Structure formats: structure tokens, C-alpha cells
């Protein structure tokens, strides 16, 4: 039988606010355990939550970026359950009237484009952490993370493969960083995915029983966990079994998912509106102010790059994967308006390659966009060849902010297009390579390239390759 996979994602995005969502404690990562947990975070008797305005603003920013509705009033609710890293015995979250409802994002897999609809995005507080290492027979509780603001983003079950799920997760990851509401650091848990996975016979419009997979903290794990889970479910169904609705945990070491709890053990969270927090009324003017400050969104930029700069969809997708990269590109193009394609190629090639190799982000790139544009200008006007340009780029990377021109002059790298000079190198090479000249004349085309290579070599790469070609061909056909 043919099976269709159905996937919906719940993504927890840690909001990049300075303080927690209901207290004034810092949210900085990596501090001494429990050093960033104030009276409210540890839930002393009598303390009360106060909503962080910035967290609301960030949620609205996200809602506007995905074309969703912003609910006003929006209501906070308590989700009740006992756990040692949940100090109040309830999590402040949202059930009815989440701050963001609806909206959509576009994902691309290969050359296929698809719209994924979002159900909702709601604000809530993070829990602390329990650690079992280093405490013999005991559990350590670190409440530094408790109360950190989260935006939980829930998609409709519209993805049909792990590839689409990853594309969706990446699109959201890019977007939340783009609009500046999350640092996107997956290792530190700033962006966490849970996947709801089910399968059904192809063509069916009834949803199969789903399992929720928790704890997917990388795109690779997301993909592998879904693939494993889909295979597991198909196996069960094909051998006549049925799927039990349950929560499963992905174990990266063994590359499998295993049952955490089934529906029967599921908590009754006893949600009810939090009486400590009044319904949040969001004035339309505030929404408009936030909308005005919203940066140009990746989708809009991507389309502009294709239309205005004539980039391919592929290039435009890559360049708009992160706002810093796109900004870098636009800065470069600003200094070299006629050569956007060349800028794109260099940024995706030389610049990105070097950044990857040195594990740097684009905003830490030692060569700034103006410098890069200065270098590319010298390629287009024939001052240096592409090959020499790479040497100049290397010097700029190591250097102290010198412009391409300064480096070219200092190292005497200017391309030589003077016919007389090139003729002299041709003479020299032809004299020393009589055999290859004979080979070429006998019809061996390869010999020509070898000759060109040698001419370039003795010119130390400075000879204009196009001119070398023309002049050499002329000499050999004389």
C-alpha cells in the first residue's frame, strides 16, 4: 500500500528579551545555577507575575510577519501540573485567545513551493531544568531558565515529508532571527521542535492516529526522528497493528523514538484563565507602530532580488536565508549596482566558503561589503583576473581593512593587458615548448591550454587571460 505522511510541528521559540516574561530576572544563558531566579521565578508565597511588554511586542511582530490575526484581548491561562522544575505547579500559558492566530509561511523543497498554514502562536513561560548528573541519588534543579519567555508556534498538519518539515522549521528559524525576536541558538535550546507525525493510506482524507515526538533540537534530528517514526508506524500498520496515540522521545544516540507516555497517562492540565493577569488589550495603534518598524521580510526580499537584480530563485533563496547575509549582499550591490550577479556569486562562493571554514557568521566577516565591492569592481574593469582577485580577497581577509586597490598596488597585482608585454611571454613559452606547439598544430587542442597555463604562470597570473588567448591563437595559426 502507498502511505502518506502527515506532519504538524510545534516550535518553541525563546524570546530574545532581556528579562523574563513575568519577572525582572535576567534571561542570559550559562550563569551559575539558580543565580538568575528571583522571588517570582522560584514562586515564593505571595509573589505575582507582571507581563513583559517586550515579549508581547515580539509576539505581535511575529504575527505580523506571517500575516496572522493579533487577538485583542488575549488571555493568559494556567496549565497545571506538578514537576520540580515548575516552581508554581502551573505554567502560565495561553489556551483560548492566543496572541497570534492563523498566518502562513512559504517553504521550498527542490524547486517546489508550498504554503504552510499556522494554527496559532501563543506566549508562555519556560520551565527550569532538572539535572541528574553530579548529584548522587538526587536531582538538581536549576531555575535560571524558569520564566524565560517562549512563543509556541503551532502549524497545521500540512507537511507531507520530513524534508518539508525541515524546510518549514528552517523557514521559521530564519524568520524569527530575521525579525529579531529569537537568537535561534538551537544548542542552547532557543529554538526547539516537537513533531506530530501520523500516516494514512494515500488518497485518504482522514487523519491517522498521531504520535508526538519531543526533544528535537537540530534539523538533522528532526528529519531522522520523523523518518524513523514514519517507518515505525507503517511497519505497525502493515503488520495489521494499530497506532497508539502517545508522546515519544527521540534518542539521537540510537536514532530511534521511544514511548514517553500514552494518551491514557496524559495530564489533565485543568487550564483556566490566570486571575493574576488581566486580559491583555492590544491597541490597534500599537500594532501599527510595530508593523512600521518591521524589517523588509525575507520573502519580499527574495522576490525583489529575482525581479530587480535578476538573480535566480536558487540564489535569491540562499541570500535571504539570513537577514545579515541579505544585508551584506545589498550593501555590496549598493557599491556595485550593475554587478549584482557577480556580488551574489562571490558572497555565496568565496565569502560563505571562507566563513564556513573559519566557523564565522556573516556579521563577523573580516571583509566588509564595501571592500568586497571594491575588489569586484577591479575584476569587471579588467584590473585583475578572477584568480588574482582571490589572492586579493585572501589578503583583505587577513588584512587591516585595506581596500582592494591598496592591496593590488602594494603587491603589484595589476593585470597586464599590454600586447607587447604579453607577446614577450608568448615568445618565451613557445621557444621552450616546441613539442607542444607541434602537438597543437597536429590537432591536439589540449596542448593549447597547457601553453596558456605556462604563459599565465610566468606572468605571475597578471597577464589578461582573454588577451593571452587571442594573441596565442593568432600566433599559432600564423
Amino acid at each position: 500500500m502507498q502511505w502518506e505522511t502527515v506532519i504538524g510541528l510545534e516550535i518553541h521559540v525563546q524570546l530574545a528579551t532581556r528579562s523574563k516574561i513575568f519577572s525582572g530576572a535576567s534571561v542570559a544563558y550559562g550563569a551559575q545555577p539558580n543565580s538568575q531566579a528571583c522571588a517570582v521565578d522560584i514562586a515564593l508565597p505571595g509573589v505575582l507575575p507582571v507581563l513583559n511588554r517586550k515579549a508581547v511586542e515580539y509576539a505581535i511582530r511575529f504575527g505580523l510577519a506571517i500575516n496572522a490575526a493579533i487577538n485583542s484581548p488575549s488571555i493568559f491561562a494556567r496549565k497545571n501540573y506538578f514537576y520540580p522544575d515548575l516552581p508554581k505547579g502551573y505554567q502560565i500559558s495561553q489556551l483560548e485567545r492566543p496572541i497570534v492566530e492563523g498566518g502562513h509561511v512559504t517553504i521550498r523543497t527542490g524547486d517546489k513551493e508550498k504554503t504552510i498554514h499556522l494554527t496559532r502562536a501563543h506566549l508562555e513561560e519556560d520551565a527550569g531544568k532538572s539535572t541528574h548528573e553530579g548529584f548522587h541519588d538526587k536531582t538538581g534543579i536549576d531555575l535560571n531558565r524558569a520564566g524565560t519567555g517562549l512563543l509556541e508556534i503551532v502549524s497545521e498538519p500540512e507537511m507531507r515529508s520530513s524534508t518539508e518539515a525541515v524546510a518549514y522549521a528552517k523557514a521559521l528559524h530564519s524568520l524569527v532571527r530575521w525579525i529579531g525576536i529569537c537568537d535561534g541558538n538551537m544548542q542552547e535550546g532557543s529554538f526547539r521542535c516537537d513533531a506530530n507525525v501520523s500516516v494514512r493510506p494515500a488518497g485518504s482524507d482522514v487523519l491517522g492516529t498521531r504520535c508526538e515526538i519531543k526533544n528535537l533540537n537540530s534539523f538533522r534530528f528532526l528529519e531522522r526522528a520523523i523518518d524513523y517514526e514514519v517507518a515505525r508506524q507503517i511497519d505497525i500498520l502493515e503488520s495489521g497493528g494499530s497506532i497508539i496515540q502517545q508522546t515519544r522521545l527521540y534518542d539521537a544516540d540510537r536514532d530511534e523514538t521511544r514511548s514517553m507516555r500514552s494518551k491514557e497517562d496524559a495530564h489533565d492540565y485543568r487550564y483556566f484563565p490566570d486571575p493574576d493577569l488581566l486580559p491583555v488589550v492590544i491597541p490597534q495603534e500599537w500594532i501599527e507602530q510595530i508593523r512600521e518598524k518591521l524589517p523588509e521580510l525575507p520573502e519580499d526580499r527574495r522576490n525583489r532580488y529575482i525581479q530587480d537584480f535578476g538573480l535566480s530563485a536558487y540564489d535569491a533563496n540562499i541570500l535571504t536565508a539570513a537577514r545579515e547575509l541579505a544585508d551584506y549582499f545589498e550593501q555590496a550591490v549598493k557599491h556595485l549596482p550593475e554587478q549584482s550577479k557577480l556580488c551574489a556569486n562571490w558572497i555565496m562562493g568565496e565569502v560563505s566558503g571562507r566563513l564556513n571554514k573559519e566557523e564565522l557568521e556573516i556579521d563577523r566577516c573580516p571583509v566588509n561589503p564595501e571592500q568586497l565591492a571594491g575588489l569586484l569592481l577591479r575584476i569587471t574593469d579588467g584590473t585583475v583576473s578572477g584568480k588574482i582577485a582571490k589572492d586579493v580577497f585572501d589578503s583583505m581577509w587577513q588584512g587591516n581593512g585595506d581596500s582592494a586597490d591598496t592591496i593590488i598596488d602594494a603587491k603589484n597585482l595589476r593585470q597586464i593587458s599590454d600586447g607587447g608585454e604579453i607577446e614577450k611571454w608568448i615568445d618565451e613559452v613557445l621557444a621552450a615548448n616546441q613539442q607542444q606547439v607541434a602537438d597543437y598544430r597536429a590537432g591536439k587542442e589540449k596542448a593549447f591550454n597547457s601553453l596558456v597555463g605556462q604563459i599565465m604562470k610566468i606572468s605571475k597570473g597578471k597577464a589578461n587571460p582573454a588577451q593571452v588567448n587571442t594573441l596565442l591563437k593568432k600566433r599559432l595559426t600564423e
Partner: protein
Amino acid sequence: MLNASLRQLSSLLSEKKISSTELTGEFLTRIKALNPDLNAFITVNEEKSLEQARVADEMIASGQSTPLTGIPIAQKDIFCANGWLTTCGSKILSNFISPYDAAVVKQFDQAGMVNLGKTNMDEFAMGSSNETSYYGPVKNPWDRLAVPGGSSGGSACAVAARLAPAATGTDTGGSIRQPAALCGISGIKPTYGLVSRYGMIAFASSLDQAGPMAKSAEDLALLLNVMVGFDERDSTSLQRKKEDYTQSLERSVSGLRIGLPKEFFAEGMSSDVSSAVEAALTEYRKLGATFVEVSLPNSKLAVPVYYVLAPAEASSNLSRFDGVRYGYRATQYTNLEDLYAKTRAEGFGEEVKRRILIGTYVLSHGYYDAYYLQAQKLRRLIAEDFTKAFEQCDLIMGPTSPTVAFNIGEKCDDPIQMYLSDIYTSAASLAGLPGMSIPVGFGNNRRPAGLHIIGNYFREAQMLNVAHCYQQVTNWHELTPLEINR
């Protein structure tokens, strides 16, 4: 001295006829003598109180005093006070020394008042008799066989027995007004949101409201001046212009329209309370007030609605008492689940557990709509009844409690009967309206009866004015229990 009003004490202090240290010492001595039997205080800390008194004396000496500087006040043990044991009447907080001050405690501290100690209360403010306290019942100073009411029973007893010139209370469904009535003192629960709840241990957050308890309306006004104020740490705190509640105390009540809800003057009220209330109304007639019958048709649902909503909120509010971070923890447990179960089974008393169970039930999947949501709708109807009634009258009056104080142990086994003690007070709580109780005489066994005054939102000044006028022509509020006076 013991019967002196706050204004009189204030004069004595500012004229340096007495020091705060002497005054505080005098009350501490009284507490030492009478508290072992009355059990009004859970914690007394002479050293801390006297230290505060010394600071107050310095404030007075250096001319930095406020009208209340140097006057002692007893704090209900629901308020966190820095460095003080803060138990909320429960075993589960029997070792909890608060590391911070509640807003209310801080306000009185800044006004230079002296914290005289932490008063006994029903566990987590759940009770109408002070019998649910882990620290034992409080006795009614008018009759030691009787309960003082609850949950602010310790505070009411302390003021009535003159162990303190004033006290703080909190009121969720009647916990200031009912004990004030049963102990023959004055108490006011302001409009919900006027006094910060920060640092006040939550029972039912949408209902809890702090207020003062004292001998007279005038004293209440002085105390309210300190307590009321916006606090950004409490999201339900209201931002309003500061009011001086003493300003209009003397205003004439002639022409005042008093609403008498027919539902409050029907069956249920005992005849002794009824006579005392009627007599008080007669005084008001003499003062020139007029009466109009109003109707609060949904008020009969107030108790059931209250006993759905308050436990629902409580079941969640009390989840933090889990033995993990502070407070009592069971000594023997086998795993996490067992730690929670044993800690809470051993740490909470019967009534608290009953309400946690009720609250958990009404919020459960499948019952939420039928109980919690339905109760919320009725809550709105109850509030709307008041809105309509206030179109016809300025204030509403009735009995605070259907009976005078009952005997200790009398209603312990019958929670429903106990819950009906709040039959007149819980409606105003659900509506968020201000309510107060003033003493208007005695009923059976010479136990005090209280008059309940419900005002419209933010009409505390008017309520205090109306109560003050009554207290200018009567002396119920000045009487003290014979035994106590010896």
C-alpha cells in the same frame, strides 16, 4: 490607653507623652498575658517589634513622623514580612521565614507603624471560624466558648481584646467582615484592586483583598490612607488618584438612600441579629437617612458560585507548596510522586484539602464548562444585580453574618453550615465591591452582632463617613469584653 483611638495615640506620641517603645511594650505585655488563652497570635517577636518602635521613636524625635508613626499594628499571618515566620496558618509553611515584605507590610513599615506580631488565621484563609488553623483555634474575647469568626479571626480577636490597636486582615468571601462582626469591631474590605496583593499569600486571586480591622471607622480611614495605592508588581492593582479617607468622615448622612435587599432580610437571619440590625437602621433613620427596598435576585447563588470559583483558583494557587523549595517536606518518601503526596497530605489540613479537591474537580476536563464557566457567568449576573440596585440607593445595608458567633466545634463537622456564614458577604466579594462591618450591639449570650455596609465601587470614603456618623451617636464600638477589661 488600650481603648484610645489611633488619633489619640498619635497625639500622645507626637506630644511625647508616651514613646512608641513604651506603647509597644505595653501591648506586648498584654499579649504575653492574654495570648496563651486567646491564641490570637501565631508569632510574637518582642525584639523585632521593639527595634521597630525605637526606629519610630527616632522618626518622631527628628520630626519625620506620619500620623500613624509609632503605633503598633498586628499583621495577619498571610502577609509575608521580611525575617518573620510567615505560616498562613498552615503546617506546610511552619518553617517559612519570609525573605521579603508584602506591599502592605512595607507600607505600614514606611509609615512608621510597628509590627506587633503575626495573627492567627484559618489555614490559607479557608474558614469562617479560625478553627482550621494548624496553630489551634482562636477564642472569641466576648465569650471564650465561641469562635472569633474567620479567616481573619486572630486579627479580630487581637483588636477586640485590645491586644493591638489595629490589625490587618484579608477578605476573600467575608474574612474581614465576618470576624469583625463576631468580635464586635470594625473592618473594611476595599474595592478589589485598591490594595496591592503583592506578598499576600494567595487563596483566590480574583477575590482576595486586604483591608484594615480596628475599633472604629475613623481608625479604618487612617489605616486605609496607608494601605491603598497602586503597585506595579500586582497586575490587578488599580491606578487611581490618592484619596484621603478621613476627609469626609464628618459629612451629614441626611438624605442618604440606604438600600435594603429583600433577600437579606428574609429567612436565614437569626432573630437576635435581626433586632440589632433593625435598631441600627433606626439610628440611621434618626440621622436623616431614607430606606429603599432593593433586590439582589442572584445573591442566593453567591455561596455556591463562591465555592466553585474560590476553590478552583486555590487548587492552582496552592500547587507551589510542594516541599521542593521551601516549607514543610515529608521526611519519608520513595520517589517524586510520593514526596508530593506525603508532603501535601501531611502539610495541609482537612479544609484546605477539601477545597483543593473541589477546585481540582471543577476545573477538570469535562466538568469545567458545567462548573467553572457556569459560575463565572453567574458571577457576572451577581455583579449586575448590584449595579441595578445602586441606581436606586447610595449604599446597601444588612446583617454581616446570619448569626452571632457560634461555639467552637459547633460547625466543624458540617462544612455547608460553615460556608453559609458567608451568605451575606460573598456576593459583594464576587462583584469586587467594597464591604464593611461595624458593631451594632449584641445578640444571644451577649455575643456581638455586625451591620454590613456595601458600597458602590470606590465609595469607601462614603462608607466610612456613614459608619463614622453612626459611631458618633452610639458606643458599641467602644465597648470591650468585661473579662478583658479587668
